[in-house]
């Protein structure tokens, strides 16, 4: 069943078009994450769905009913705000029941429903406390509980983890995922944190300038980014981009850049393969660059292991140790690339390292449009 449909939605703020003819469908039970830099319109989209922001044109359907112009209180959506926005003067119980009481639900029923949700979220021992007496995790649960009490079909989460320190953020992220698995509720989560997006989402929408640039599972978005923007936005360190052109060598295609040739497997391309001589940009994730001098792997081995291709030697210009692995910044003839070193092999600054890539894992983008080929 479709929990939310957004059709041709445009929103203007102060004369600027923040969301531009956006279409989106969210199925019941999904955990959709809207990912984007600040100002990309992701929070505005959320607020428009909630009814806190009026659209310029387009429609918003919740559970199949047109809610474009409904009062926020009528939409049966719950929202968890960045600051949680717990009512400071009310107890946990008062916070959970506020929405029901505002709608005139009978006192006994309010009490029952609050208790049910409190048990579900393990808040039953805290009902008398004020928000100021709660820990960060407890506050988040109250904020979620406030939405659940109203049996909201759709849960909107507006960067609920971004105000927390790193440790707590990781804990609450896990808790949120467990909660979604347990409840099976439809959730839309807005964030600018890609780790959060990749770990939580069942489906991920990457937004830029009021548009969705790619919508898919986290794996799809990571492995087969639809365009250069998405490719560069997700992944840390970011994907390496190398400008070059296509050369046809017999039946196969080759990517050529200064001092670099890579044979491209045919299954790499979405539709029609590019023409001979066309300029393209090669996207290469740091983890797909291998070191030929790694212990136990001879350069000869790499050269013959199927789709791996030599890309020549790079000079180590910078090493960023990260504990479990390190990031090597390498100077190639065609530019600087980042590569991950998991093998524990030590490299020194200035050292020349032979490199190879997994040709099946590369992405190719049109040089002008930036779209995936």
């Amino acid at each position, binding site marked *: 069943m479709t929990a939310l449909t957004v059709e041709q939605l445009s929103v203007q703020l102060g004369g600027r078009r923040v969301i531009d003819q956006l279409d989106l469908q969210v199925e019941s039970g999904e955990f959709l994450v809207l990912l984007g830099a600040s100002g990309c319109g992701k929070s505005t989209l959320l607020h428009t769905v909630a*009814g806190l*922001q*009026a659209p*310029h044109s387009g429609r918003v359907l919740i559970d199949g009913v047109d809610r474009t*112009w*409904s*009062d*926020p209180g009528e939409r049966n959506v719950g929202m968890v705000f960045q600051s949680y926005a717990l009512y400071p003067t009310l107890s946990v119980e008062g916070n959970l029941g506020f929405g029901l009481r505002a709608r005139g639900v009978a006192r006994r029923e309010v009490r029952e429903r609050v208790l049910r949700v409190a048990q579900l979220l393990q808040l039953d021992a805290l009902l008398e406390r004020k928000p100021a007496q709660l820990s960060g995790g407890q506050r988040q649960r109250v904020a979620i509980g406030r939405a659940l009490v109203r049996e909201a079909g759709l849960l909107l989460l507006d960067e609920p983890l971004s105000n927390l320190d790193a440790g707590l953020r990781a804990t609450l992220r896990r808790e949120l995922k467990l909660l979604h698995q347990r409840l099976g509720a439809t959730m839309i989560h807005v964030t600018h944190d890609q780790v959060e997006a990749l770990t939580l989402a069942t489906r991920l929408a990457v937004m830029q300038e009021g548009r969705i640039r790619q919508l898919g599972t986290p794996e799809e978005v990571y492995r087969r980014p639809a365009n250069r923007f998405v490719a560069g936005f997700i992944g840390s360190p970011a994907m390496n981009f190398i400008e070059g052109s296509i050369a046809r060598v017999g039946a196969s295609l080759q990517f050529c850049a200064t001092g670099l040739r890579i044979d491209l497997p045919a299954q790499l391309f979405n539709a029609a393969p590019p023409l001979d001589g066309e300029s393209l940009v090669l996207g290469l994730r740091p983890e797909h660059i291998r070191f030929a001098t790694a212990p136990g792997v001879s350069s000869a081995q790499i050269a013959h292991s199927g789709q791996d291709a030599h890309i020549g030697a790079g000079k180590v210009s910078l090493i960023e140790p990260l504990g479990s692995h390190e990031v090597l910044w390498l100077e190639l003839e065609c530019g600087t690339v980042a590569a991950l070193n998991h093998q524990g092999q030590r490299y020194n600054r200035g050292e020349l390292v032979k490199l190879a890539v997994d040709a099946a894992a590369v992405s190719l983008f049109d040089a002008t449009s930036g779209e995936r080929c």
Partner: protein
Amino acid sequence: MNTRRIDRGLRRAHLALVPMALVALVCYLGATLWSLRISLSSSRSFPVSDFVGLAQYRRLFSNERWLHSLGNLATYGLLFVAACLVIGWLLAILIEREVRIGGALRLVFLYPYAMSFVATGLVWQWMLNPGLGIQEAVRRWGFSEFRFDWLVDQDHALYTIVIATVWQASGLVMTILLAGMRGIDADIWRAARIDAVPAWRLHLWVIAPMLAAPFATATLLLLTGVAKLYDAVVAMTQGGPGTASEVPTKFIMDHLFGRANIALASAGAAVLVLSALIVMMPLFYARARSNRRNA
């Protein structure tokens, strides 16, 4: 253009602001415009709707008492604002430096501000009474030639009002500046200590400029008080001796209710409003600018 409303509550919000709209448009804007209109008529006891141009303003500016009132207000305003700012600032510095004792004394400097202008005027009228007040007390101590009879002295009566109102309002300046000082980054004080800057130099050249916004706020509030000065004069000197301490508000009130010349009074009011706006506008502007910078 969207005519549909997303917020139904918006209608109630508009409804709730009706009293404010009435007050702003009728009681403030409307009343001021009405006064302006009356000042262009020949109304005496009752408003009439003829039009005599600026005749009332010409009469006003050939009226000795009005001119004298305006001069008095300028002198008073200058002295009052300057004295309040200097005293309030010094008190704030002293209290900031001597926190333990200053904190306790802070409330002593502000209590006069809780008192009415009438009570303030009457206390000082009594203290400055030449026959039985401070002058007499000092003479009893043996300084038989001591003179402090400003209250009944044509040339000095205005200053007694300055004294009384400065006593009343310096605590306000002190409070505003103290709040401002509290907002200054503690590292500034630390840096000054490391640089071994003497305290007075720090206050004069570093802290005071950083307090520009609170100073502007305090000045604005004091100037409002200057333009509204009335109660204290009525209680203390009734404008006397003679017309020595007359002020424009009193001129306006007398002509409104005593002498039944509402057109002339309205002209006076218009002049007063205009002068008030001219003096305060730069401060409004400066404060708005510094607020925007800090935002």
